[in-house]
């Protein structure tokens, strides 16, 4: 699982980065790297079997007073 994930990330980087560097699109490269970092932070722990908190739970808690009305 983890190996597949690393291959996937390497593939995405190989696909996008050379073109961005050649065209000197540094801003785009930074945004690409930031998104990929978020993606890695969310996916690698899951591949290793670590349970991450589900953002839906936080939203559920936030809207609980209103959501109660819909039960």
């Amino acid at each position: 699982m983890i190996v597949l994930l690393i291959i996937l990330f390497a593939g995405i980087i190989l696909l996008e980065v050379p073109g961005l560097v050649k065209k000197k699109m540094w801003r785009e490269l930074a945004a690409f790297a930031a998104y990929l970092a978020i993606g890695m932070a969310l996916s690698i722990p899951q591949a290793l079997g670590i349970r991450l908190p589900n953002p839906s739970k936080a939203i559920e808690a936030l809207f609980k007073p209103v959501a109660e009305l819909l039960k």
Partner: protein
Amino acid sequence: MLEQGKIDSKQAILLLISLVLPTAILTAPAITVKQAAQDAWLSIIVATMAGLLIAALVTGLSLRFPGKTLLEYAEEILGRLPGKMVGLLYIWWFLHGNALILDEYASFLCSALMPDTPVIVFFVFVTVVAALAVYSGLEVLSRFNQLFLPLVLGLLLVVFLLAAKDMEVTRLLPVFDKDAAAILKGAVIPASWFGEIVIFALLIPFLDRAEEAPRVAVTAILICGLYLLICILVVVMIFGPHVSARWIFPTFNTIRVVSIANFLERLESIAIAVWMFGGFAKIGIFYYAAALSSAQWLGLKDYRPLVAPVGVVLVALAALCRNIVELLNFLATAWPPYALGLFEAGIPLLLLVVARARGKGGRGA
């Protein structure tokens, strides 16, 4: 400009139908029938009216700022920093909303059809295909949609017609058995689906005739409302309110029971084809919205470098929730205030009020 393509009004209508209808037909009937029982069809009518109001709000707001998307005029209206905050919230909503759609899509395929396939397989496959479509741009996405959606809508109608044999109008009686509160509660869920039309505010600048946007949005909502109405009527007339409310995918079960002369049977393959396509189109549009708005938020020249990493974030977010019961519970209770209250009606309304108060933007609304 981030997007060079232009789409015409007809393509836009079809795109908006794909944006609303697929998941609405799949999961909304169960939730609505649970609240409003046999009066669920009244809920759909109320929800359609709410959807029309949201469509009018969003297009009216967008037409005040020709050539600008929601994220760009939010900054103009509220000022730089609050505008950026609103933009960030929307990007989050596009990502998280899409993760939930991805979950619905995969859970359906997984629980109804291929229980032995790991759910991640469905996530990855549909995301890769959607990524290709998003990478090719809005024009390709809408042409593809224009090619297949009429077929999908037609097939769905045929299947519903074939189910007519088993329908009993008396299952819709008594009308108004539930009180107005229950009907309204039932309307809130489909209304939050119709409200997803707020994404249109990102696409209006790419219409070749932007002034037709209100007509486009209203037509799309009316068609979606009609389809959802037919869908709910068919489901309730076949199974009655008590059985329908207990299923996770009542529309799918409705199609499953069609049997004509012991020959025309097992039409669920059509339902699955419809859902495979519809889910893909819907995920694609949300995906496009997330990539495009991220690029606009960061002031990039091109959104395409973001397509692949956004896809990774999507799959990872979708994989966080893997329990269909939990998902449906979230959709039935937290999703309406979260989506409808905040992103579909709340923020656009706030933007319109502030724009009027500060005299920003041009004509209209």
